[in-house]
Each structure stands twice: as C-alpha cells, then as structure tokens.
C-alpha cells in the first residue's frame, strides 16, 4: 500500500498529518506493507485534483483533502 501525503514545505498541518499516519502505521504493525511518502510538488497536487492541503492519497485515490483527518479516520482508510 502506498500512502502519499500532499503538502508544500511550509505547511505545518501537513507535517503533523505525516506524523499521525506514520505513528498509526506503526501501531497497526504495518511498517512493511505501507509506504508513506511526502509529496511537495504542486503540479502533482493538481494531477490529483487537490487544491487545498494537506491531502491524503492511498494507492492513487484521494481520501482527504483540505482537512486534517482524525486518527480514527486515518485508521479507517489504512485498514
């Protein structure tokens, strides 16, 4: 499973989303299956149709955009 976090470099909610995702992946014991990457190129955001950050993309599918999902919501999309 590939998880992409969309967020430009100055965006601190995007950083905290990445930390949330990483810690949840660890909690679930899925470090080996899930790859978490941060995407900072805005052209890439556009190709996903995301215009407000942070965005969360799982296997090429946009799950959240413009909001920081709660831990439960993240857990759901990673399950």
């Amino acid at each position, binding site marked *: 499973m590939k998880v992409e976090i969309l967020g*430009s470099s100055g965006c601190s*909610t995007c950083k905290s989303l990445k930390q949330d995702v990483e810690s949840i992946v660890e909690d679930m014991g899925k470090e080996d299956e899930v790859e978490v990457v941060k995407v900072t190129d*805005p052209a890439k955001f556009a190709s*996903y*149709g995301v*215009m*407000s950050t942070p965005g969360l993309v799982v296997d090429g599918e*946009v799950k959240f955009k413009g909001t920081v999902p709660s831990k439960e919501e993240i857990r759901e999309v990673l399950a």
Partner: protein
Amino acid sequence: MFKYIAVQLINLTGLTGRVADSLEFWVYDTLKITVILLGVVFAVSYLRTYLPPERIRDFLKGKKALVGYVLAGVLGIISPFCSCSTVPLFLGFVGVGVPFGMTITFLTVSPMVNSAAIFVLFGSFGWELTIAYVLGGLTVGMIGGGGLMLLGFERYVMDFDFAANGDDPDVTNKSAKKRLREAYEDAKEIVGRIFPYVVIGVGLGAAIHGFLPEGFIQNTLQGALAVPAATALGIPIYTNIMGVIPVAESLIGKGLPVGTSIAFMMSVAALSVPQFVLLKQVMKRNLIIAYGGIIGFGIMLLGFVFNMIF
C-alpha cells in the same frame, strides 16, 4: 481591559519612564493582537468549513465580469493565512476554468488584505483607514486581474493537468462538532505559527515607541521618495502582517505619514522572495514579474493616496 492588565503588570515591576512606556506598549499590544487573532482566525476557520476552495471555485466559474471580480477579491480577504496554500489554490482555480483574471485578483488581494489585520487596524487606527485599506486592496486586485487578463498573460501559466479525483468535500453534512474541531485545529496551528512574529513585531514597535527620538522621522523620512523607499524596504523583510502592524502603529505615532506606514506594512506582508519562489513552480517569468509589479505599484499608489487623504 488589556490596557489595565498591562498597566498593572508594569506597576508591579516598579519601572518608570521610557522603559515602562515601552514595556506597557509591548504587553498591551501583544495581548490585544493575540486575542483578536485568536477570535478572528477561529471565526474565519469556522466559516471556511462551509466554504472549501472547491466551492469558491465553482462559485467563480460561472460568474461574469464585475460580480466575479468583486467576489474573487472578497474571497481573497478570507482566504487561508498560509502562503503555502496559494500555489495549489492557483492551480485548482486555473485548472477548472475560473477566469484567469479573477484568479489573479484573488491571488493579489489574498496577501495584501488580511481578515485579522482588518480588526487590528480598526482597533488601532479607526474605521476610515480600515475601510480605505480594504477598498484599496480590492481595487488594486481587481484592476490588476482584469488588466493581466486583457493583456493575455494567461499564456504564461505553466502547463499542468488538473484532474477531478475523489469526491469534493462534503460541506453540508458535517456536524457542528466536527466543524468546531476543524476550526480549532486551524486556529491553533495558525496562531501558533504567527505568535512569535507578533511578539517580535510588537517588541520592535515598543522599542520605537519608547526610544526613537521625536522629530527623527520628520527629519529623515519625508519627501516624495518615502513611499517607494518604504515599499522597497519591505521586500527583504518577510514576516506575518500581524507582526508588522505594531511597528507601523509606532511609526505613525512618531510622525511617519499614514500612507508611508501602510505601504511598508503591506509590502512586508505581500512582497516576499519565498512567495515568488513558490510561484515560479507554476508561473513563467513574465507573469511573475507582472504579478509582483501590480502588487508593488498598487502598494505605492495606495501609500501616496493615503498620504494625501489622511
């Protein structure tokens, strides 16, 4: 009330004279600005849960001419507080066919006019200047956006693909609790990020307030070149607008003309190298220069006009 707290605190320290004066200014303004910031950011963030950018975009897409430009400008005022969100917004707007001119209007007003700054300005300088600040910023943004559209600058946007992907955020079915949580998260993040700038900015303002000799400004910073100089000086300084308002406030108190001070304030907030580096990812050089030029000339124009009328 803030005045009272500040005065009490300073009395406790037993200081008098200039130092006490400066400290009082510091405590008072930091309190005032932080409270206003918290209130406005929370309120605007809450409102924004009803108005995600996707909705703004769909709103603007079908609008013609004047209405669209005015709306684009107003939306620029309540737009996100972080310059890091500007570029994805720009691509999203252009990508789905919001008229290019309106996009530029939005992009121009967004850094020039800030919703929290409106309240702080109102508290410090009264309603005339506040209204002039808002209307001035809107006018520059609308003329700039319309102008670049007519000149065909759209061709200088980099090529990119914008895909519709995933459902647009559901704005109608959110519970009040979820909205409040989002607004709270937003406000916490934004105020936390801006707070250091406020403390430093107010500190500078306090130092100017207490220690800059009266008459210094009258003797040095006057004349026709003052406004362009203040604008140019603002470019290398990059801080949040909330940090520069107290500086402008003290400078006005020391006799710097209002227009010159406002030009400095807007320039610090709106003209910055990091912002333009970000835009370079999506705009070709001519467009960036034109965009920067509009903001720069707009700020100077407002500075001159404000100096004449206030």
